[in-house]
C-alpha cells in the first residue's frame, strides 16, 4: 500500500512512505519506530542498505523447513538431523525453532528434534491440525515400521496451559506406538522462591519430586 502520506498523515515522498508502511507491518514496530527506522536507513551507507535487503531476500529464498524435523533450515535435511554424532534414538518435541536454539545453548541434549510451530490453543482455534503434528506422527510411524531406532520422545513444550495441553494431546496420540514418552521436569524454576510460587507450580513440583542426588 503506497501512500502519498506517511503514517502520521503528513505529505511524504512516496518511496519513504512506502518503506514506513512496510516496516510498520512488522510485529512490535509502531508508526514512530517505523519512521525512525526509515530515516535511519535513508542516512545509512548504500552498501549497508543493500546488505540488509539482500539478507532479507536470502532468508526467503534459501530458508525452508527441514523435511525430517520441521525446523527452519537452509539445507534439507537440516544440520542437526544429518549429524551422525547426535543420538538418533531420542526426539525432543518443541513448539518453536527458537526453542531448539535455547536447548542447544544449554548443551544438555544430544538427540534430535521435532518442531511443532505452535501449541494447541483451542480458544484461538489452534488445534493439532494447525501444527506440524501429522509430520511428527508420520516420522514416528516410519521409524516403528523400518528402523525401530527411536527409544524416547521428550515433550519439551512450554509449561503453560497451551504447552501442557499440547503435551497431553501428544502423549495420548503417541500411546499406540509404544515408544517411551517423557516430559521435561516442571515446577520451581532455578532462582525462584517457594513463598512466591503459585499453587499450580508447587503442585507440579511435588508431583515431579525425585530422589535427592
Amino acid at each position, binding site marked *: 500500500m503506497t501512500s502519498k502520506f506517511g503514517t502520521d498523515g503528513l505529505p511524504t515522498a512516496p518511496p519513504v512512505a512506502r518503506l514506513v508502511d512496510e516496516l510498520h507491518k512488522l510485529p512490535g514496530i509502531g508508526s514512530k519506530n517505523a519512521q525512525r527506522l526509515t530515516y535511519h536507513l535513508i542516512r545509512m551507507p548504500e552498501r549497508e542498505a543493500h546488505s540488509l535487503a539482500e539478507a532479507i531476500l536470502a532468508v526467503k529464498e534459501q530458508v525452508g523447513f527441514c523435511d525430517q524435523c520441521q525446523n527452519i533450515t537452509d539445507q534439507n535435511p537440516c544440520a542437526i538431523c544429518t549429524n551422525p554424532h547426535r543420538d538418533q534414538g531420542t526426539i525432543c518435541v518443541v513448539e518453536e525453532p527458537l526453542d531448539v536454539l535455547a536447548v542447544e545453548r544449554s548443551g544438555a541434549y544430544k538427540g534430535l528434534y521435532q518442531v511443532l510451530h505452535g501449541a494447541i490453543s483451542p*480458544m484461538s482455534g489452534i488445534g493439532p491440525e494447525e501444527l506440524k503434528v501429522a509430520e511428527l506422527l508420520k516420522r514416528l510411524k516410519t521409524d516403528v515400521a523400518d528402523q525401530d531406532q527411536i527409544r524416547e520422545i521428550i515433550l519439551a513444550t512450554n509449561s503453560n496451559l497451551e504447552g*501442557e495441553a499440547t503435551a497431553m494431546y501428544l502423549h*495420548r496420540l503417541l500411546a499406540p506406538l509404544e515408544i517411551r514418552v517423557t516430559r521435561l521436569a516442571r515446577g520451581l*524454576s532455578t532462582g525462584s522462591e517457594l513463598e512466591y510460587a503459585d499453587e499450580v507450580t508447587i503442585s507440579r513440583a511435588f508431583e515431579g519430586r525425585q530422589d535427592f542426588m
Partner: protein
Amino acid sequence: MQSHSDKPRTYKTEGVVIRHSRSGEADLVLAIYTADYGTIHVVGRGLRRAKSRLAGHLEPLSHVAIQLIRGKGIDIVTGADTLHGHTALRNNLEGIARGLICVEMVEAFAPEEYPNQELYKLLLDALGLLNDGEGDRLMWHFAFHVLRTTGYMPELQQCVACSNVVQPDEHLFSPGLGGVVCLNCAKGGEPAMPHERAGAPLLPLSSNVLKVMRYFRDNRYETVRNLNVDGELAGELRRVLGGYIHYLLEREVRSSTFLSGLSRLSPAQG
C-alpha cells in the same frame, strides 16, 4: 455500570484469567473476567521471562486476586495471587477443554467492562465443579445459565411466532427467534415468515429434550447432576443448544470443537 474512568490510579479486583496473547518482547496481554469490572484487558510486563514471579498466577483458568495500575491506554497488572489454581482440571485434556469452553462462553456473551456478579459466580462454581471431576452435564447446565444471566435464555414455553403454549411433540426450535415454534407456525403460510427471515433453519426438538432443557433452566446444578441423559438425548440437546449458541455468536465455540475432536483419539489414560 463502572466505567474505566471510575477506577482509581491503583486498584484491586479478582477474576478468572480467560486468555493471553504475546506482546512486545516479553509481555503478555491478558483478558480477565473480573468480579468488579467484567472483562478487562490488561498487560503483564515481562510475564514471558523465565524468572517472572507473576506468570504462574496468571495462567488461563486461574482464579486470581490482582492489583493493577492505570496505564496509558491499557492497565498494568502489578501483583497477582492465586485464589484457586484448578490444578486437577489442568491435569487432563477434557478438563482443560471444558474449562476453556466456560471462559470462552463468558467472554463471548458478557459485554466488555460490564460486571455481572451472577455470571461471575456461575463461572467460579463451574470451574470448581469441573475441578472436582464433573463433565458434560455441568457444561449444559452452565450454558443455559450463561444464556439466562446475559439475557439470551431461549423461550421454552410459548411459540415465539404466535405466543400459544406449545403442545408435547408438536414443536421445533428456532435459533433465529430464540425459542420453540409450534408446528402450525413452522409449516408454510404467513406465520412461518418470521423465523425464515431470522436466517437460521428450524431444528427438530423432541419432547424429552425440551423437558431436559426446562429442567436445566429451572434448577440448580446440585439438583440436575444425577439426571441420566443418554446418548441420543445428549446428541439432540447438543444440536439444539449448540445450534442456538452458534447462531448467537455467528461462529462455533472453538473449545467445544476441540473437545469433540478429542473423542476421536484413543481414550484417556489417566
